[in-house]
């Protein structure tokens, strides 16, 4: 990683008790902001990122030199308009873009934490990020928004801090990680841990990297982010720079080559242990259980206005699971809108150029802001 100096951080001195029981303090949270906080301090939007995201939502990511992960949705005149709103995004704890995570050095041993980093939860991530409100002296956010794991954080944030956001937009997510979700995450973790270079999470101290394991984890996960139709349309059985099958195990098909590429670029920007910790946090996420089997209870104290968005071809966090959130909110008369957007781009739809989604998001945010 270069340009590590481009990463903004706060150091949280207030102790944070994690769900695992451990207390952490003086830990860093890396963040980025876009736009300007107005005088009334009523125009801030907190974006929560997904599993492999980071704080660089828009513009050029100074570390990877690529577009920010939500560039289609966030920026000047975009759905989340940085000319109007003050956008904040923090790197979740457990991740590897500057926030407290397993790739941090343990000051007592001068070694990389690795698996001695505590197991964290979505709840812990949200509680850690809450410190940013104090840092920016924002009493109430205008909006909290995020897709996938970001959507889970939106739900957790509102249940933890019911009066701290005017509107909440959980996208393509769930209130409770399903067996299928856990299964795919376990596949990724096993792939990393099966790599001889993982050495029980101690690879950095031994100058190794479990690149093969991490890249296979990414390849498997990547398939779950796309739809069967989307894949078929984009790749079909097209061959990769060859006229015929080669009767070997090279990447004959374009889809193979594509996945290999996705795996290989991922290992350059992501830490294998972070992948273990964050997928674990997602698997542990069960807001229904947190509220004794009644999801509605998570939201009884809030007057936040919700918009739940799902996508037709998302089979990882399908419409039915998003609807569970809507049903729980309607059961207590909360203010909730819901729309399923037609798209063949699978779970990744929220990250891509899906005009109907982006238009809906933009109009909803802008009209909700006007009706202050």
């Amino acid at each position, binding site marked *: 990683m270069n340009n590590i100096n481009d990463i903004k951080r706060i150091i949280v001195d207030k102790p944070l008790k994690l769900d695992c029981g451990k207390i952490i303090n003086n830990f860093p949270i890396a963040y980025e902001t876009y736009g300007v906080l107005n005088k009334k301090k009523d125009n801030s939007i907190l974006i929560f990122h997904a599993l492999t995201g980071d704080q660089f939502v828009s513009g050029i990511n100074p570390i990877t030199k690529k577009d920010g992960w939500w560039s289609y949705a966030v920026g000047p005149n975009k759905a989340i308009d940085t000319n109007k709103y003050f956008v904040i995004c923090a790197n979740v704890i457990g991740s590897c873009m500057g926030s407290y995570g397993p790739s941090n050095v343990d000051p007592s041993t001068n070694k990389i934490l690795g698996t001695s980093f505590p197991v964290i939860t979505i709840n812990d991530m949200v509680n850690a990020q809450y410190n940013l409100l104090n840092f920016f002296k924002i009493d109430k956010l205008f909006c909290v928004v995020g897709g996938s794991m970001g959507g889970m954080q939106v739900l957790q944030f509102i249940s933890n801090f019911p009066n701290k956001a005017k509107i909440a937009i959980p996208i393509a997510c769930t209130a409770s990680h399903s067996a299928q979700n856990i299964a795919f995450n376990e596949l990724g973790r096993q792939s990393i841990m099966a790599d001889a270079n993982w050495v029980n999470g101690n690879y950095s101290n031994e100058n190794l990297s479990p690149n093969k394991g991490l890249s296979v984890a990414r390849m498997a996960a990547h398939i779950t982010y796309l739809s069967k139709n989307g894949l078929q349309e984009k790749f079909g059985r097209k061959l990769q720079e060859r006229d015929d099958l080669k009767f070997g195990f090279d990447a004959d098909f374009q889809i193979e080559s594509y996945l290999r590429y996705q795996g290989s670029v991922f290992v350059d920007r992501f830490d294998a242990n972070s992948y273990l910790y964050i997928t674990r946090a997602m698997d542990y996420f069960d807001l229904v259980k947190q509220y004794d089997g009644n999801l509605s209870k998570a939201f009884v104290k809030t007057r936040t206005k919700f918009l739940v968005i799902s996508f037709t071809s998302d089979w990882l966090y399908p419409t039915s699971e998003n609807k569970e959130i809507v*049903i729980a909110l*309607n*059961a207590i*008369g909360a203010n909730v*809108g819901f*729309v399923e957007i037609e798209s063949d781009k699978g779970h990744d739809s929220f990250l891509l150029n899906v005009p109907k989604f982006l238009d*809906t998001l933009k109009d909803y945010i802008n009209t909700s802001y006007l009706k202050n």
Partner: protein
Amino acid sequence: MKQEFKIIANLIEKNTRILDVGCGDGTLMEFLKSDKKVDIRGIEISKNNVQKCIGKGLTVIEGDAEKDLIQFPNQSFDFLILSQTLQAFLNPETVINELLRVGKKAIVTIPNFGYWKVRLHLLTKGTMPITKNLPDEWHNTPNIHMCSIKDFFNFCNNRKIRLDKSLALHNEKTSLIKNSNLDIKNLSAELGIFLIEK
């Protein structure tokens, strides 16, 4: 603003909680919100319409009234509105029961199949009637359970559903429907508007 919507607005009290079932593009919702200061929600089956509503900042969920009203608790709204949609349901009776479970009262409007022009069309042409309110042909109409004002009136009476107000609309003019003039209104009105409760 459609005359029908003005009549619906007149039936609704200020500062109440309302659910517009089959809210379309949200025109009625917006009108009621500004005119009556109501807390209004909508449910709509068409994605395009839902996106339009959400874009206007209205609280609308995408869903099918026949399946999705179940998520709303008993008597959680003061009024449920069902505007010219009853005839499109597979089970209109189930929907009416749901309306009266979720809402303290319901406002139901129906295109009147007993309207004289409809009757004349069938009588003289011998084909399924096509009118201003019923523009589709038999094979592509969403209206699978057409009824007349008289049908709906009898339906409610037979099921002990109270008709708090029954109105007939014809040429922008509204009149009361009573037992005594039922057959005349059933012939002369294009639209029936009913305020019902259980």
